[in-house]
C-alpha cells in the first residue's frame, strides 16, 4: 500500500510528476551572450519536464505516435521507453542585438518561450 499525505500525494517513494511546464529563467549574461545581446538580459523561457505515462491525458495533446509508444511502454517498460515530454507550443520574444557589422538590430525570434508541453 502506498501512503498518501494529507494533500493526497504519494508519500515515501519519490514519484515523477506528469509532463508539464516548469519554470526556466534564462539569463543571457550568465550564458556569456551579453557581448552581443543588448536586451533583454533575461526572460522566462520555461521548460517541459515529467513523464508521459499511460494513460495519456488529453491536455497533453499527444501525437498518435506518442499514444502507441506509451501503450507499448505500459505493456513492456524494458522494451520501450515512454514517449517524450516536449514543448507543444512556443512563442517568440523580441531581442535587440549587435550584429557582426556593429549595427543595432531588432529581431523577433521564434520559438523562444514554452507556452505548453505535450507528449511527442
Amino acid at each position, binding site marked *: 500500500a502506498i501512503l498518501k499525505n494529507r494533500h493526497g500525494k504519494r508519500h515515501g517513494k519519490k514519484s515523477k510528476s506528469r509532463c508539464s511546464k516548469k519554470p526556466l529563467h534564462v539569463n543571457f549574461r550568465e550564458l556569456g551572450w551579453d*557581448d552581443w545581446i*543588448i536586451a533583454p538580459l533575461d526572460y522566462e523561457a520555461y521548460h517541459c519536464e515529467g513523464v508521459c505515462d499511460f494513460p495519456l491525458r488529453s491536455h497533453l495533446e499527444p501525437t498518435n505516435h506518442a499514444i502507441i509508444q506509451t501503450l507499448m511502454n505500459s505493456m513492456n517498460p524494458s522494451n520501450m521507453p515512454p514517449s517524450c515530454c516536449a514543448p507543444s507550443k512556443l512563442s517568440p520574444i523580441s531581442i535587440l542585438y549587435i550584429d557582426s557589422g556593429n549595427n543595432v*538590430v531588432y529581431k523577433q525570434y521564434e520559438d523562444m518561450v514554452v507556452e505548453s508541453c505535450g507528449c511527442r
Partner: protein
Amino acid sequence: FQSFTIFVPSASKSSKVPKVFDGREAKYFKDIYSSSSSSSSNERYYKGGFKDSVEPHDYMLSIYKTFSTAEKLGLNASFFRSSKAANTIASFVDIGQDDLPLSPLRRQQYLFDVSTLSDRAEVLGAELRIYTKVSGNFRMLEMEPVDIQLLSCRSQQLLDSRTLDLQESHRPRWEVLDVWEIFKDRDHLTQGSQFCLEVKAMLDNTERELDLHHLGFHRNGRSQQKKAILVVFTRSKKRQTLFSERREGRTLIGHGEKGKERGPRSNSKASRRRRT
C-alpha cells in the same frame, strides 16, 4: 591636462588620484549614470554596459520597448503600422564624413555599410533618419520654406524631396525620409555593399542652395546617438537560429577590444572551455 598625464607614472599605487583614462573610468562613470536611472534593468544595462563602441539610437530602443511590451500583452508586433510586418529591423549608422568643419556645407553624402543585410530577406521598408537643429540666427533671416532634396550619389538624379517647416523646426528633431523605393533599387549601392545618398537644401522660391550648417546637418561634434541612421525593415522567410547569430557576434568580439572588457569571469579558461 598634459601635466596631469606626465605625472601619473610617478604616482604611488595607493594614490587616490585617478590614472590616465584607460577606459575603466569611462565604464565607472557610465555605471554611476546607469545606477541613478530609475528605468528598468535592461535600460541600465545598455547605458552602463561595456558595449562602449556601439550605442543604440533611441529609435531602436523604442522599437524594442514597444514590441516587447506588445508581446507581453499578447499583441502581435505586426499590429503596429510602423513595423511594416517586419520581424527584423536593422539600423545602420552613417559613416560619411564632412569635408572641412568650417567650410560651407552645400551637399552632404550619407553612407551606410549594409553588407550584413541578408540578400534573402524581403525588404519591406527603409527610412533615412537625420537629426536636425535649425540655428537660431538662420530662423531670424530665412522664413521661406526650405526644400530638402535627396539625390543619387552616382548620377545626381533627384530621388525625393521634403519641405522643411522652419516654424516647426525650433526644436531639435529627426527628419524621416522614406527611401524604400530607392533602397530596393540596387543601383544606389556602391562597391556592392555601401548605400549612398546625397542631401542638399534649397530655398523654395529662389532655388538657392543653402549651407546645411544652418539646418544642423553638420557632423562636427555630433555624438554617436545623433548620427543619421538608415533603418531597414525586413522579413526573413528562413528561420534563423540564435546560435548562428551568436557565432557571428563572438567572432567579431574575439578580434576586438570589447572582448577584453568582458570581465574576469568570462575570460577564465574554464569559462572559455564551457562556451566552446
